[in-house]
């Protein structure tokens, strides 16, 4: 490893290379060797490419936290492969151990890379520009000319000219035969800023996923239905690992109105646009009621919490009278769309307290009802042809018996528990169905009661999320971008001017230039050298160089 040292000293910032494993390691040496491997540039590169590679499965295989429906379908279709995939965490790639391992290693590598570079940089910024090499003509870019002027005069002017070009200059008059200059430290600064910013981004993202939450609620329209921000009110809730319910802001809101514009012509007829949910909200209990038009791309922000409009649907208002004539169920029932375009929806209505028998309804809602026809014109399946409620109809089957709601265990309001229930049939053995338009009623067979389709309500799916650290992440990315610009476009370079009296009495002025851009874009430095030579040969210093020579040194 000692043979690596001179190399390190030469270009300490760039060349942290992986080294071969030496023999006979003590534990300490092994640790050092491992650290060196992990923090080497090549390892960072491999990890970076691995990260790209590891991201691919997540875009091909359905992911639990993105599309769990697709995951369950996939599981059904591949019963033998699914357990294997499960063991490999392939349904949750971005939260898996192996994916985390890659980016954590990358972070360690990053930190291990930055820290020494910070020190190197701190030293480099304070250091004087290095002394002129003996043979300036051996540099990749060099030039020379002869003049009758005194070397000291030339050098003094060179120092001024180069300083005017915003180089940091080292020249002690009368004590050295050359001017040494350097500029472009901002490249390495940009590099470091970029790497630090990546860590800031990760901290911000981690804060969001650890302390934040994301929840959803289906909320019926109307002043009668409200939402207040606490855990019990959510339909689904995904908290971060370190989420604390106390941070939930105590706001509440209700949806007073929901508007949507259905396109009636053109190729996208049937598409809905311009969703607007009018909210009445209070930021704290007893506070002033304010209004807000919640739209897509236009979330409501209350404190650190954002409220988004992400879905809508229909809730038919249904009244069930039981066999004894009592109203046992009355109100809107949320039906969930099964077709995202026509809004054909599915739902169940349960009346567990109906007498003499419990009543359960299950069926479909068609916002604009039509009977499908096959090629011969025969009626086929009922369908909805339009998402707007132009001709709404519910079509439901009837169930009685034990609906499984008496024992107090949790069950979904969107599923009818048919384990102990029986479907009511007609005399001809066909299932009993009711097809109702708003305002219509039907009397149930067997003296079970009656069902009325009173009208239509709407609901909205609202997503509420709190993502602490999102501004930290954003600031991090912006910082990374700035750093990136510095590291890509600032060109670090060194310049030397040497003037020596020759035997014949003239003065030989040599200029050498070294481009230190590491990114493989060494610029053509001849232009800069030529410009400097021109200024040196011009006995009257130009105005620009005089004024700019008073500027601060660039670091």
């Amino acid at each position, binding site marked *: 490893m000692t043979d690596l040292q001179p190399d390190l000293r030469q270009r300490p910032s760039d060349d942290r290379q992986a080294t071969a494993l030496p023999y006979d390691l003590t534990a300490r040496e092994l640790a050092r060797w491992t650290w060196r491997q992990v923090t080497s540039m090549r390892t960072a590169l491999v990890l970076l490419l691995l990260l790209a590679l590891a991201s691919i499965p997540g875009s091909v295989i359905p992911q639990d936290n993105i599309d769990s429906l697709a995951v369950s379908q996939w599981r059904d279709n591949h019963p033998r492969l699914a357990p294997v995939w499960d063991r490999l965490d392939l349904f949750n790639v971005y939260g898996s151990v192996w994916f985390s391992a890659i980016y954590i290693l990358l972070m360690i590598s990053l930190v291990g890379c930055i820290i020494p570079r910070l020190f190197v940089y701190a030293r480099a910024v304070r250091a004087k520009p290095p002394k002129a090499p003996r043979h300036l003509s051996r540099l990749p870019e060099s030039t020379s000319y002869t003049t009758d002027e005194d070397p000291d005069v030339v050098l003094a002017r060179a120092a001024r000219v180069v300083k005017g070009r915003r180089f940091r200059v080292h020249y002690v008059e009368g004590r050295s035969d050359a001017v040494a200059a350097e500029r472009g430290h901002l490249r390495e600064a940009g590099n470091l800023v970029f790497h630090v910013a990546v860590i800031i981004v990760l901290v911000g993202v981690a804060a969001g996923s650890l302390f934040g939450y994301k929840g959803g609620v289906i909320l019926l329209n109307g002043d009668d239905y409200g939402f207040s921000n606490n855990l019990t009110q959510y339909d689904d809730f995904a908290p971060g690992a370190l989420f604390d319910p106390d941070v939930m802001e105590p706001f509440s809101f209700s949806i007073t109105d929901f508007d949507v514009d259905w396109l009636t012509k053109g190729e996208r007829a049937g598409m809905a646009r311009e969703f607007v949910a009018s909210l009445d909200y209070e930021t704290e209990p007893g506070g002033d009621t304010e209004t807000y038009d919640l739209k897509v791309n236009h979330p409501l922000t209350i404190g650190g919490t954002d409220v988004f409009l992400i879905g809508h649907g229909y809730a038919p208002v249904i009244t069930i009278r039981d066999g004894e004539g009592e109203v046992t169920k009355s109100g809107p029932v949320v039906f969930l769309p099964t077709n995202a375009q026509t809004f054909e929806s599915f739902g169940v209505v349960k009346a567990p307290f109906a007498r003499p028998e419990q009543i359960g309804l299950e069926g479909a809602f068609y916002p604009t009802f039509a009977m499908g026809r096959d090629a011969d014109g025969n009626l086929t399946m009922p369908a909805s042809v339009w998402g707007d409620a132009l001709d709404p109809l519910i079509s439901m089957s009837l169930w009685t018996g034990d609906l499984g709601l008496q024992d107090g265990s949790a069950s979904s309001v969107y599923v009818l528990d048919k384990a102990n229930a029986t479907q009511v049939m007609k005399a001809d053995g066909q299932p009993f169905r009711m097809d109702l338009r708003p305002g219509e009623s039907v009397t149930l067979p067997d003296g079970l009661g009656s069902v009325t389709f009173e009208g239509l309500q709407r609901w909205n799916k609202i997503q509420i999320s709190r993502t602490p650290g999102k501004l930290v992440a954003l600031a991090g990315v912006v910082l990374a971008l700035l750093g990136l610009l510095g590291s890509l476009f600032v060109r670090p370079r060194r310049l030397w001017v040497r003037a020596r009296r020759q035997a014949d009495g003239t003065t030989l002025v040599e200029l050498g230039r070294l481009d230190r851009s590491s990114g*493989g874009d060494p610029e053509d430095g001849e232009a800069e050298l030529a410009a400097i030579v021109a200024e040196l040969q011009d006995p009257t210093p130009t105005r620009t160089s005089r004024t700019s020579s008073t500027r601060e040194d660039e670091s």
Partner: protein
Amino acid sequence: MTDAQWEVFSYQGVIAAAVLYFLAMLAYFFELASLRTPAKEVELATVAERPGGSSSAGVESAGESRRSEVAGRLGLVLTAFAVLVHFVALVARGLAADPNRVPWGNMYEFTIAGTFVVALIFVLATLRIDIEWLGPLVTTFVVAALMAAFLGLDDAVLPLPDALNSPWLVIHVVSAVISTGAFTIGALLSGLYLVKARSSATTGYLARVPEPKVLDRLSYRMHAFGFPVWTFAVLITGPIWAHQAWGAYWNWDPKEVWAFITWVVYAAYLHARATAGWRGRNAAVLALVGAATLWFNFIGINFFSSSSQHSYAEGAAPEMSVVLGLAGPVEAAQEVGVVVGADHPRP
């Protein structure tokens, strides 16, 4: 003009631009065909010619080189003119929509915008650096992409779904298109590098192309320009918009995943150059891998991924429209799956 007229006008504009690019391509090909003499001689001839006046090189080869130079000039002028027409067609496309909007609402529009940027970057680059020799490749690529857009991706001018209706559409997509254009030219250069590095041709196109070292450096410059813009598009404006439209700034949506992969590959490319000293072959291969992920993201994800909220491909459009407009009621259906035993909707 009415919207329909604007739409027709835009189509005509795109066709006219495509024809102009095609003519430019022919001019470039003619230029190449007249480069039968070994490149060295031509170079000598042109060098001798430039100071103006008596050339010591063969008169015949000088005449030939002048002919080829005229053809090359013509190619560039035609390309520049095509870019102008292309721009008019793009604007018309935006005016054809009701309400007027930026012309990148679907893949056809994105393609005509992307090819415009590729051609524009090329024309602007010729003003500053010697890159005219890239003309044949650029025009061929643009003509091919425009034809593909016309035949395969054409879509009517459609109103934007709500989720796309945002100022971020302009900022996010403009930066994505610009960086895609820069990366594409960078990939052309890297591909050219790989071919040139293995060839020893003294005549024909490859002889005209500069040294591999120059190709390598130009390719690097394109990537160095494209990468910060891509960072801005994918990691700044993208998440901001995603946060507004979908409620989470990063959703691991397939499109996002692949944009991230592209970012990582190009980051590795720049990193490798800066630190591991990868030049030439390795770097060129990495750049081509990056371009492959970039184009797969644009074409592949749009057509093959049904779960991406970014699927703007024609086939997916009707089915996705509502979902795009208002992230999935169907999704809502299964998310709501587990609910407490309340019989009544919550009061």
